[in-house]
């Protein structure tokens, strides 16, 4: 399983990955999209965001997002607020 950019985040990241991989094959592909790994993801993301800030990658990413928004609102059929309102997984 791949490591995280932040050494201290790798353990929680791999726990999240394991959870996500089972969720993806056992639930999502079988039509059940209800979240299963949120707690792990939020813990991992906490750690990751700190690392990105430390490495000053947060601004680099912000610029990239400004230039290439995701989802791309011009081609996506969904509303732009979906990131906030969407089910986190």
């Amino acid at each position, binding site marked *: 399983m791949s490591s995280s950019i932040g050494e201290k985040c790798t353990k929680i990241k791999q726990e999240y990955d394991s959870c996500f991989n089972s969720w993806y094959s056992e639930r999502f592909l079988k039509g059940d*999209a209800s979240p299963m790994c949120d707690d792990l993801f939020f813990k991992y993301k906490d750690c990751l965001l700190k690392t990105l800030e430390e490495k000053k990658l947060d601004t680099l990413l912000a610029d990239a997002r400004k230039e290439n928004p995701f989802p791309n609102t011009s081609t996506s059929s*969904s509303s732009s607020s*979906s990131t906030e309102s969407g089910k986190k997984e």
Partner: protein
Amino acid sequence: MKFFQATHTFDHSWAQVTAANWMKYPNEQCPHVVAVDILDRHIDPETGVLRTERLLTCNQNAPALVLKLLGGSAVSYVRETSELDPRTQTLTMKTQNLSMCNVLQINETVTYTVHPQDPSSTLFSQEAQIVAGSALSRFSSYVEDFCLTRFRDNAAVGRAGFETVLEKFKAARLEAAAQLDKLEKAAATSTAASL
């Protein structure tokens, strides 16, 4: 600007290929990818599409002198955004380099779909656009050609790496099925013996 295009058929189902895609790294053929992070992931409540944004951390294998001249560092970053539609069974991934964009911009789009002629296999298509930045204006064509060749070679290596990953998962699945079969047979025998 240069373009690269390729298609490939993976002899595995779309479900297997997309599941393995999340676990593609690390693999022996792509040691330059040292970390993969999930920046964001959510399901679109209207369409059911799974959206993922990831950050790939790579060790560049460009010559030290080139890096020094262009002011790059040994570590580079790639942003990958993907949309996976379980209804149409389509996975589209876009990548863009975040490092040295002023020197060279590489935008890649790959899609994984169910093979139209053979539903048990997966069609992979890949497109990339290579643009040398203004910093290289005098040499842009030369640099773009050089990068196109490198990209073509790396694409083949990347595919081979993913094939290895897919084969590993297939072997693990067959092994698990065999174990289960053995257990079931053993259970059936012991049940029969106790009767």
